[in-house]
């Protein structure tokens, strides 16, 4: 073959490859792997972000969502689910992507404001209308004859917040220490007839299957149940002490860089801190970080005393001590 024929052939093949690749390169998709109760929040947020991104000169974007127990979702991403961003229930699940998957740098939490938690939430009780078992505080959950619904802390981030809030309350009781707290937790979990893998499953168990007297729930999930699953059927009880849950978000660098979505993924998370997004967040009963929006929705979020994960020495410590294999939860639940 002559040189000119070679050149012609090469040019033709390059043009063909470019023509075939063009539609693929043009299409922009993002996968947000999140925890169980955020379905509705991100459905609304994704629509708002897609609109915003277009006005900023970006391409049309399709954002896909995946939901499940936070721990389980983290495992799936480590196993290869190509998440561009994760919006999980707790920092230790994203830490697992660092330590086990090497998918993003260890300083991921410093890359966005407020430790990469654009919204917070807390843990409340959902009881049946009229509160027939007269459940007022954590102590009532360990009483004989009370049936408690909460997911499995081994797979659900929300369940870990539930557990820690209960543990913190027990520690604060007169004479409270780790031994008494563990004894209390043991009694509480003896009252749990069903352990779902995620918070949404527990909502189904309590609200739709009619099991249990009280559901230890994310605040937003409790509102969802009262507003959409059974208006007039449930009541929300705020315990005397709860925990400040800070669900974090992060770009999964390794995936986003490979897929060429790093810029849009970063913008997607940054936009969560915008006024518009904070408004959407508040409307879905997550506590907004923005003080102005928080003030506007203050009546929806009663002020209660809360501990934080720092009271447990941070997530790394809490995860290992309480929820790691052979940790306190394993000992309590299996014995």
């Amino acid at each position, binding site marked *: 073959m002559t040189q000119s024929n070679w050149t012609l052939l090469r040019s033709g093949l390059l043009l063909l490859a470019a023509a075939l690749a063009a539609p693929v390169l043009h299409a922009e998709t993002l996968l947000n792997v999140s925890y169980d109760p955020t379905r509705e929040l991100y459905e609304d947020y994704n629509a708002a972000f897609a609109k915003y991104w277009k006005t900023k000169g970006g391409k049309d974007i399709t954002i896909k969502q995946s939901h499940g127990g936070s721990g389980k979702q983290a495992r799936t991403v480590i196993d290869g689910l190509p998440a561009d961003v994760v919006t999980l229930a707790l920092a230790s699940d994203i830490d697992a992507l660092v330590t086990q998957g090497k998918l993003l740098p260890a300083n991921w939490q410093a890359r966005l404001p407020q430790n990469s938690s654009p919204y917070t939430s807390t843990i409340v009780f959902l009881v049946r209308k009229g509160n027939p078992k007269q459940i007022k505080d954590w102590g009532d959950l360990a009483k004989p004859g009370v049936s408690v619904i909460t997911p499995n802390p081994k797979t659900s981030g929300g369940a870990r917040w539930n557990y820690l809030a209960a543990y913190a309350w027990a520690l604060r009781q007169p004479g409270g220490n780790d031994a008494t707290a563990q004894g209390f937790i043991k009694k509480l979990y003896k009252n749990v007839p069903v352990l779902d*893998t995620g918070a949404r499953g527990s909502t189904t*168990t309590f609200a739709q*299957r*009619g099991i249990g007297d009280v559901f230890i729930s994310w605040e937003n999930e409790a509102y969802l149940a009262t507003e959409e699953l059974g208006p007039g059927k449930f009541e929300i009880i705020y315990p005397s002490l709860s925990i400040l849950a800070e669900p974090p978000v992060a770009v999964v660098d390794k995936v986003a860089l490979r897929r060429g979505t790093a810029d849009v993924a970063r913008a997607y998370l940054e936009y969560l801190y915008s006024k518009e997004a904070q408004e959407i967040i508040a409307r879905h009963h997550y506590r907004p970080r923005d003080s102005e929006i928080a003030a506007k929705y203050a009546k929806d979020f009663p002020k209660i005393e809360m501990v934080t994960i720092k009271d447990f020495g941070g997530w790394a410590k809490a995860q290992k001590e309480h929820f790691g294999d052979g940790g306190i939860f394993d000992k309590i639940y299996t014995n």
Partner: protein
Amino acid sequence: MRIRRLGQGLLAAAFIAPLAVAQAQAQQPTMEELLQRLEQQEQAIKVLERRLEIKEETDATAAKSAGVVKASEKGFTVQSADGANNVKLRGLLHIDGRALLSEDDTIVDDQFLLRRVRPIVEGTVGGIYDFRFTPDFAQGRTVIQDAYVTGRFAPGFQLTAGKFKAPIGLERLQSASDIRFVERAYPTQLVTNRDIGLQVAGNLLEDRLAYQVAYLNGSNDGRSSEDFSDVEVNDDKEWAGRIFAQPFANSDSFALRGLGFGVAGSYTSQEGNATQTLLPQYRTPAQSTFFKYRSAAVATGDRTRIAPQVYYYAGRFGLLGEWTEVSQDVAMPGTLGVREDQVDTTAWQIQAAFFLSGEEESFKGYKPNSVFSLENGTWGGWEIVARYHELDIDDAAFDGGGDSFADPLASARKASTIGVGLNWYLNQNLKWVLNYEVTSFDGGAADGGDREDEEAILTRVAVGF
């Protein structure tokens, strides 16, 4: 006295009876207690139901991510839950027997041989990328028959890279498991077998039209790139293309549905040399060589092939026909300098097959209606086949007297073969083939006459999965 005792008894009974009734009443659960118990039972049932529901959900989720292992007559497969990734282990074993009944049976020794010994690893990754790797260990050597990957980007656009069958000959493109005779007919000897390169292919018009365009290293007639140890020997490449129509493929018409026809061709311009003459030899079905160029002759320029082809399958009956011509520029140093000429070689065949046991004929595979079992009195599938094929070499190959490209006293100008056969499909994976082929020649005898007819019995036990 007796009256007094009776009175005492009645008195005691009068006192005890109300106490017993009161005690019995005290043991009866109240309505509230009954409702409570009912509620507890109801909760217990709900809990059990929910636990079952969660277990089913967990099992279903686990099943979605669990791999699948399958074993069937088509091989053994390990597959991801979504089917997007799989690896199949298949195999092909052909054990042949050849015997010449001719008087001059020294041309080819009667023999048993391992004609094909091919473990096949094939599969798919990412849902659309198919790969295949087929080594062949038959006849005392190791050859890579197939090693390619195909991206199925769209039905009409599939890109293949690697070593694969060149898209020219119809019977060549038929799987070795599905050919009806022990050896393919003469037209296959004029087309490239397997070669290394790229191919764009696709099916259009709802599979009624197929096309292939390949850009290959280039191989001799009937041969593969392993003749050159799978290494390119020059800078010249070969284009090959094929278009094949099955206009009634989706029709309800029984009579027309199995009709397919098309045309294929190839072009290259290659220069041979003393080490690689790039010229072919041709053999009979019993694999005796009846034509070869003189050792000094080499390919010297254009090699063009054209191959119209057709098949027709209707119920138990099948017909396959193809005609192929290869035009090859040849050069050879002679007494008056270098002789150059174009040699046109043609071959054609028509073969028919008929399932005695009622199965449907098709280009791709067969499925016997029964399996051979003495216990059940079933005999598997039985098929009779017949074909006529011939190969005709251009007179230009024999012109020039002592300077001719081929020796007319050693190479025949034409071979014509009639063959009949019986195929017994013991089951989907095992068949026994028996062929009787008679070949007559024009020329090729040392005395200047025709080479003696060749009668051959060919048989094969074939295992394929």
